[in-house]
């Protein structure tokens, strides 16, 4: 088959993917007649679909390209960040997710407004989400748009509009239900591609022993520890802790059927993540043996898909990359749209809106919220990976303390929450340009997190608590987990 066959297969697979996600959107449309149905799937997701949703939110192109590249240049040790990230998920499972799910709310700002009896806290958090997720969404559109532009030959404008269009269409049609089942599709595609590619690589490029010999001779750190424990913790643990309070993961948690389903879903997410992480690890390391002098480590996945793997398998792996752009974009878009429609429009301007009006507002917000990221993507703000990491770490510095401690410490006050959100975000923004990679011994995210934790606790101790009736909802008399 000629190399033109690659393009034909790729276009065919992408076309099929578009048809499937539009079909999912149309099927989901009928199940989204009220706001809860649209924004949180009517709280109907079971553990396996929920697990795929949580995984699909987390595993973006940063993993399918960026982490493969990390393994290419640094070898094995980066794999431990998956387990470090899971520590963050464990914090979520123990201290956040079940209680959040039980609240029966719709968005993370709902939690802030309810827990701290403060409309300001809810509104401020909604604005922060809207800003951070606008940039995060632009990064997804930019990455996906450029890929389509170069692979299909269409103009960059048309390519960005195509990627944004796919994302907006299935999200506007089916909301969280669409996102959930496209997440299942993403899991299936990634696992199918990796499930064929990994044995092919073992058979044709050699097993672990010959791989280890080849890599160890290039650089012993490739088979040992390339990064320090602290560096691995900064990369994995902080990401995991940020996921415990990430608005789009909180929305997914609200969508689960029950407290038990919530805990099980996190477990199934571990299963999906583990299999994908194993495949990513082997891709990166095998590519270092097969093509040891790539100009840049992030080329490992594209070269793997086009030059190393058999045509169909390679195109399936690259389709997985495309799916990660659009699926993560859908989750980010829905969360940002809910901040606009539910937390700002309905709560502040139309509190008496009917369910039908709320759903129309939510669908309209999905379309409106996508406009600015498209404009930013067309301007190509910055490297995608930088924008993604920056946004995720900013969210962690804003929300981690107020969510995790707020859910488990009665003494947390509205003033403490506000100071922690603003202080954490400000510290992170100020620290970032000063850190290379540390300033005063701290990474920017470490500094932001520590600041937000200290402010939450310190300010709470000297300010007034939420009313007792509010606290009773979060800390019933028989709750043994509360501090």
């Amino acid at each position, binding site marked *: 088959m*000629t*190399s033109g066959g690659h393009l034909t297969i790729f276009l065919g697979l992408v076309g099929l993917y578009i048809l499937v996600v539009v079909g999912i959107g149309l099927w989901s449309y009928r199940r989204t007649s009220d706001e809860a149905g649209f924004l949180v799937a009517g*709280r109907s997701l079971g553990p396996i679909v929920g697990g795929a949703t949580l995984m699909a939110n987390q595993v973006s*192109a940063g993993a399918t390209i*960026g982490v493969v*590249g990390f393994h*290419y240049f640094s070898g*094995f040790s980066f794999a431990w960040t998956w*387990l470090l990230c899971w520590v963050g998920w464990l914090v979520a*499972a123990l201290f956040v997710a079940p209680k959040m799910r*039980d*609240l029966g709310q719709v968005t993370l700002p709902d939690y802030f407004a309810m827990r701290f009896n403060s409309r300001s806290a809810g509104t401020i958090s909604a604005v922060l989400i809207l800003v951070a997720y606008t940039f995060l969404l632009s990064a997804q559109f930019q990455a996906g748009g*450029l*890929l389509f532009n*170069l*692979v299909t*030959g269409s103009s960059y404008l048309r390519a960005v509009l195509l990627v944004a269009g796919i994302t907006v269409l299935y999200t506007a049609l089916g909301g969280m239900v669409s996102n959930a089942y496209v997440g299942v599709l993403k899991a299936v595609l990634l696992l199918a591609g990796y499930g064929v590619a990994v044995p092919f690589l073992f058979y*044709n*490029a050699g097993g*672990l*022993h010959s*791989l*280890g*010999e*080849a*890599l*160890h*001779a290039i650089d*012993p750190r490739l*088979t*040992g520890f390339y990064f320090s424990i602290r560096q691995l913790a900064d990369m994995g643990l902080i990401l995991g802790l940020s996921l415990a309070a990430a608005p789009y993961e909180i929305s997914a948690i609200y969508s689960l059927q029950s*407290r*038990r389903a919530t*805990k099980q879903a*996190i*477990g199934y997410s571990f*299963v999906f993540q*583990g299999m994908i*992480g194993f495949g990513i*690890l082997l891709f990166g390391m095998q590519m270092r*043996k*097969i*093509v*040891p*002098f*790539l*100009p*840049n*480590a*992030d*080329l490992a996945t*594209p*070269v793997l898909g086009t*030059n*190393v*793997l058999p*045509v169909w398998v390679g195109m399936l792996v690259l389709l997985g990359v495309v799916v990660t752009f659009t699926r993560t974009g859908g989750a980010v878009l829905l969360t940002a749209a809910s901040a606009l429609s539910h937390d700002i429009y309905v709560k502040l301007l139309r509190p008496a809106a009917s369910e039908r009006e709320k759903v129309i507002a939510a669908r309209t917000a999905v379309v409106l919220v996508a406009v600015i990221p498209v404009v930013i993507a067309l301007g190509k703000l910055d*490297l995608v*990976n930088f924008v993604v990491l920056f946004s995720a770490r900013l969210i962690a510095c804003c929300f981690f303390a107020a969510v995790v401690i707020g859910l488990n410490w009665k003494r947390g006050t509205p003033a403490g929450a506000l100071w922690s959100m603003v202080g954490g975000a400000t510290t992170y923004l100020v620290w970032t340009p000063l850190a290379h990679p540390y300033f005063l011994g701290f990474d920017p995210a470490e500094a932001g997190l520590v600041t937000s934790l200290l402010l939450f606790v310190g300010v709470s101790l000297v300010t007034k608590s939420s009313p007792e009736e509010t606290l009773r*909802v979060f800390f019933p008399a028989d709750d043994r987990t509360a501090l």
Partner: protein
Amino acid sequence: MGTRGWSTAIAALFVLIAAPANAAEAPNLPVQSVQVEIRIGGDGAARVQERYRFTRAVTVGFRYLTGPCSDVVPGSISVKGPAGPIDYARARTGPWVLLTPPTALDGSPEYWVSYNVPSWTRTTNIPVVLPSHVLEAPPGAAMSIVDIQVIFPGGDAGGTVLLPQMQPDTRAGTWSTRMLALPSFVRVRFGSGSRPDECPGPGAGSESGGSSSTPGSSGSLEWSVLGFVVSLVAWVVFYMRWANARQGPSNGAHNS
């Protein structure tokens, strides 16, 4: 869209999501083109000829990857510049054989490398002698600067290239591809001839008289990966046991 388009797509994708890491520690070399021709004889042995054209005079170190039944006949390696043959020193580190240029070498804008590779098995890895450097295409030029061609003997109509992925040429028995960088080996399968399917053992496959097994440590990679997988599985098992355990009375309004 042909190979050039794919190469441009790949290059732009990495610019988009570029990490600052560079795989090689040696300096990058500015290259115009690289041509590799692997011509397989009737006896299955391969004659490999490579040509490197750089945009300026450079000093290049080379290396190649050996394995069971996969080696270069050492005495057959020839590296030439425009001024004639260059005497490279040979050293082994693990499965890699490093070819180091003489210190007095001024550098050359062109190199020709040729060597022989014996064939032992029906499916065989032909080592590619490659520069121990990242090769950079000139600014504005297409990033795909490596052309690889594999030519099977006329009688072997069933010969195929398994890795990297190549396309059949209009000439029978010829396969070709363009890539961003050189692979460390080309894996082929012969359609005819009687050869064993499996390599007889780690010591086989070398005409050098020495072992072409891959001495050196694997860095315990197998144990690291096993430890990683066991950790993942153990985590999931213990977590799911906890998650599936029956809970006490509900604390929240929507618990079930």
